[in-house]
Each structure stands twice: as C-alpha cells, then as structure tokens.
C-alpha cells in the first residue's frame, strides 16, 4: 500500500462507517410500525428493504477512485454505493421515508434512488443497470472526456442476459466501464453454487477479451488496489474490466427474510471478519490514524447520518395528487 493512499484509506473507512451506521438506523426505522405484528406495508418505511451491511468494501474501495463526474449504477441494494458516491444523504433518506423532499419526491423509494448531480442511479430489476452504465460510458467516450462508468451488481446478476450483452458491447466499443460484482454468495435463497456454473466470475472476462480481477474475503485494501488499476485503465482508454469481490451479506436478502436456507452460523463467522474492523486495525497498526482520530470521525459520521434522518422524518409527505406529476417532463 503506497504512502499517498492514507487519505484514500481514511475516506474508505469513513464511507464504510457511514453506510454501516446509516443502515443500522434504517434497520430500526424499518421495524417501526411493524411490531408486534410484522406487516411489510406498515410503518414509516414500508415496502422491501435490502440492506448491505458487510458489503461496504465493494462500494467504498471502488468509489474512492471516482469523481463526482464518473457514473455509478447500482442495484436493489444501493445504500453503500449511494453513500460512497456522495448522493445527498438527506434527500436519499427522505426518499426512503417517502417524503416530498426526497430525491424522487417520494415516488422512487429505496430501490430507486436517482441523484443526477453525482451521477448515481439504481433500480429494482436484476441486471438492468449494467446497460445503463454502458450508455454512460459511451457518452463519456463520445464527449471526449476521461470519465468512467461503474456498474455494481450482485453475483446473481452475472447470469442475466443483460450482463452478457453489456459486456460484449463495452468490450467491442472499448468503453470506460468497470463492472463490480459483489459476490455475497446468495441471490435471495439461491447459493452461488446453485446459480453459477463457474466458481468465480472474473474468469468470464475471457469471453470478452477483457481484464478480470478477483478479490478474496471482502478485503477493502485489495479491493482498493484492484479498483484503482481497473479505473485507471478505463480512464486511459484501455477498456472495460470485471472485478468480483467475495463479500458478506450479514442480514437477510431483505428485512423479514427468515433465512432458513443458510447455515445458522454463517453470519457469525462472517461478522468475526468484519471489514470495517479490519480496516480500522490496519489504520491503527500502520499509524495512519489514531484511536482518537477515528473516534472523532465516527462522531462526525453519526451526526451526518442523524441529521439526514431528522431531515427525512421532519419532512412533509407529498400531496396525493402529486402522484399524477412527473410522468412527463
């Protein structure tokens, strides 16, 4: 790890922590109004809720290499990437609470966060964001910029037709695209072994004559290194690549998932290797930060997140008739 990466590593730590804390609050907010009897449609945050606790390295260690003008497309599990990309946290939280002040005026919801200012989008259809990233990369190239586009997807999405068509296009047109596969072992209840005919998806780069990288064991440092290389290559016009990171899904697929399909101790084993803790240890050991530095940082983070929740909670709901607006511009 090069010396000049100190700033980057602290940034990664901050973003991972922000996402983690944001989601811990979200887990609670989601359960409001759903106790003692769970009802998916009840409470201030209704609908499906996909949390990314444990998967933070995939997002933060990649996005540290991006600027505001690079594009990110994400999935149904979008908070960690959105936070790393710098999506307006207040508006994002308000959106998840269905408020008028939200990114989509309450029309989108947690799976549909759009912040064109930092070029972030996501969506609820598996695989569908990859072509959008291809299009952004194409636009970047057409405009003669060195901007890149990054598509985040789950390992399950790699088996969708959209993945294949997109990778072929990106390679054929030599576009500045990086696809990050967050391999959390599961697509809802279907294990990677039961969905994917090859052990790791980086080998699939061969089908497109592009670079494929693998990151083992949710390692934020390795992810940083590899992402940096992939993004730099894309910026220099050296074409697209695929990065697959082995990551952890601490929670159910969505909140409310009974998780009967996975071993009871899987998560506790994963939690013992928590990537935020690992990075913290590294920062301290390498004296890139002191305990005190991190404590202060943590407090900043909590304040930022708490402010966002406060904003969201205090914002007004849209008027019913606003449902009819924004179909067309």
């Amino acid at each position: 790890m090069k010396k000049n990466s100190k700033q980057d590593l602290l940034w990664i730590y901050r973003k991972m922590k922000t996402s983690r804390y944001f989601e811990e609050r979200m887990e609670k907010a989601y359960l409001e109004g759903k106790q003692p009897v769970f009802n998916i449609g009840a409470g201030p945050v209704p609908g499906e809720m996909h949390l990314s606790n444990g998967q933070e390295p995939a997002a933060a260690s990649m996005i540290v290499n991006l600027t505001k003008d690079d594009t990110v497309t994400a999935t149904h599990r979008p908070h960690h990437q959105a936070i790393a990309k710098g999506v307006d946290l207040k508006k994002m939280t308000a959106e998840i609470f269905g408020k008028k002040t939200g990114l989509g005026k309450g029309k989108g919801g947690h799976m549909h966060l759009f912040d064109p200012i930092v070029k972030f989008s996501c969506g609820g259809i598996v695989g569908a964001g990859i072509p959008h990233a291809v299009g952004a990369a194409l636009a970047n190239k057409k405009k003669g910029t060195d901007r890149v586009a990054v598509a985040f997807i789950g390992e399950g999405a790699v088996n969708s037709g959209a993945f294949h068509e997109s990778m072929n296009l990106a390679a054929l047109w030599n576009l500045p695209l990086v696809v990050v596969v967050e391999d959390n072992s599961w697509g809802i209840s279907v294990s990677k072994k039961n969905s994917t005919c090859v052990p790791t998806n980086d080998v699939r780069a061969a089908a497109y004559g592009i670079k494929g990288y693998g990151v083992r064991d949710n390692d934020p440092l390795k992810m940083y290194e590899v992402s940096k290389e992939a993004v730099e290559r894309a910026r220099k016009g050296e074409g697209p690549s695929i990065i697959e990171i082995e990551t952890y899904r601490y929670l159910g697929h969505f909140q409310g998932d009974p998780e009967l399909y996975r071993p009871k101790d899987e998560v506790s084993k994963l939690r013992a290797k928590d990537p935020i803790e690992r990075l913290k240890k590294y920062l301290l050991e390498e004296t890139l930060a002191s305990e005190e530095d991190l404590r202060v940082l943590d407090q900043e983070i909590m304040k930022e997140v708490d402010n966002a929740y406060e904003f969201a909670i205090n914002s007004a709901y849209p008027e019913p008739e606003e449902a009819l607006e924004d179909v067309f511009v």
Partner: protein
Amino acid sequence: MPFDRTRMTINYLTMEATKQITRKLTGSKAMAQALEQEMNRDKNIFIMGEDVGKYGGIFGSTTGLYEKFGQERIMDTPISETGFIGAAIGAAAEGLRPIVELMFVDFHGVVMDQIYNHMAKIPYMSGGSVKLPIVLLTAVGGGYSDAAQHSQTLYASFGHLPGMKVVAPTFPNDIKGMLISAIRDDNPVVFMFHKTLQGLGWMDQLDASLGPVPEEVYTTPLDKAKVVREGKDVTIVGVQMMTVEALKAADKLVERGIDAEVIDLRSIKPIDKETLLKSVAKTGRMVVVDEDYYSYGITAEVSAIVASEGFKHLKAPIARLAIPDVPIPYSRVLEKYVIPDANDIINAVENMVTY
C-alpha cells in the same frame, strides 16, 4: 418472504389441518395444495423458478414442496428468466409439463419474447402439432409500497396477446380449482396470483385471503367470471383486490339504498361475456375496477364489450376506475391515490345512479 419467526410475532392466518373435508386455507396454501396434489398424480410435472425450493416461493406458492418432491422436481434457478422459461418451452415440447414461476409479473420484460413469441405461438405456428402444457405462475399487485417495478398487475399486457389463457383468481377456493385446471390444460396458461390475497403472515391481513377449500381435487373453469354478490341496481366488475374492494363498496352501498351486483372476473383472457351481459341486462349500470393501468386495460375491454353487445340495456355510461396511466409511486399516500378502492367505487356508483 415470510418474516423471521424467531424475531417477531406473526399473525398466522392459516388454520391447522383437520380431518374435515373442507378446511379454510389461505391463497398460498391453496396454491401449494393444488401443486402438490397434481404433482403426485403426474410425474411429468416439475417446477422451476427463483427461490421456489427451500424458500418455498417468495410469495409462498411452493411452500413445503421442496421437502416433499426434492430438487429434481422443485428446481431453483439462476436469475435467468429467458433461460429457464425458455427451457420450459423446450421441456414441454418433449412431453413434460413444466410449471415456471416468474417471481413478480413486473419482471416479464426480461422474458416476454419467450412468453409471447414462443410459448404462446408455437402451438399455432406448428398447426397444432406441438403442444405446450405450461403454467406460468406470477405474482401481481401493489398496495404495500413496493414501488414502480414491483407493484404492477399487468393483466392487459398478457390479455392482449393471443395464444395464452390468462387467469387471476381472487379467493382460495378458486385459486386451487383454477390452478388445477391450468395444470391439466394442454395449453399455456398464465396464472396470476395476487400477493395480498396469498394470506401471508407478513402482509396485510384480509378476510378474503382465507377461505374454505375442499381437500379433494377439483377443477374450476378457466374462462368463467363469477357473480360473487347478487344485486339489481348496478354491476361492479373487479379482479382480485378490486373484487375485494368492490364487495366492500357493495356492503356500504346498501346503507345508501343501492343494491350492487359484484362480478369477480377471474379470467382475463378470454373474458366471460355472458356473465357480464346477463348482469348488465338486469342492472343497466356498470362500474369496472382495475388495479392495472387505465388505457388499453380491463376497464377498456369490458366497457367495449358491454357498450357494444349490451348497448340497449345501458342506462348510463360505464364508469372506469384504474391506475391513471402513471407508474406506481412509492410513497404510501401517492400509491393509495392511484390504486382504486372502495371509496372510489362508491363515488362512481353514486355519480352513476344520478345520471
């Protein structure tokens, strides 16, 4: 998506099995029972889909079947709808009887080619020499803030295209009977089940989602609507949740001296004209309520049929209630505004009787 039982109380609607011949089942249990009984009867039936195995189907359609039939007959698939729904076509052409689940109807766009250009047309293009006995199960409906890509019904998107029978039963009894009919039909059948009517412990609890279901095997026709409440002043036509809302509205209309007849459409394609026309001949007035989009939807088709063939009976223009041609918004207040409910129906009826 049953909620984690270790963490929270669930309102279990499903009653315990008894020795009675007819017991109350939820929609989801009615589906699973139909599937189980038919799979026991015919070894050629198998099920493919995402999370249909151990998980038992995200909306409980295959609950308990993996344990009974194993992974050879209850096959979890990758997220490859074109691949596995297309594979169902190939397997059906070889004489098997695949049942495939498209988890949410909202995802049909990734696989519509296989559904409407192949599954629906091969029997015709082959001059009848290839049979495709496939049931496509798919969950429809909104009302629980799942937003624009997970809340649609898309009844008409399927109903418009030839070569498929399309059904959308409401009550557990019909769910079982129509699913068995669908499985036994030698043609492709799209079987839409409404999430909220599955009687799942983690969604809204509705009386309608629990109902008497005979234990024995029986079939219910795939092409018949059903008068679920008789009345003489106005006919309200609904499907699935809109039938439920129509019944609610009818109860309240009594207080206002209006006696509404409620028809549960059940079959999206073909539409059972006779039942509609017979009713309107009696009432002279009709409200059609749909949880799908307004334009080119059920309200259009039913209105057109009745306005044309029941022209002389109509005392007032037919009223159409449906999602007003906007995507389904997330926020509860917005979603509630776009999906018709009992109040909207009552208003429509009141406007109409004063026409």
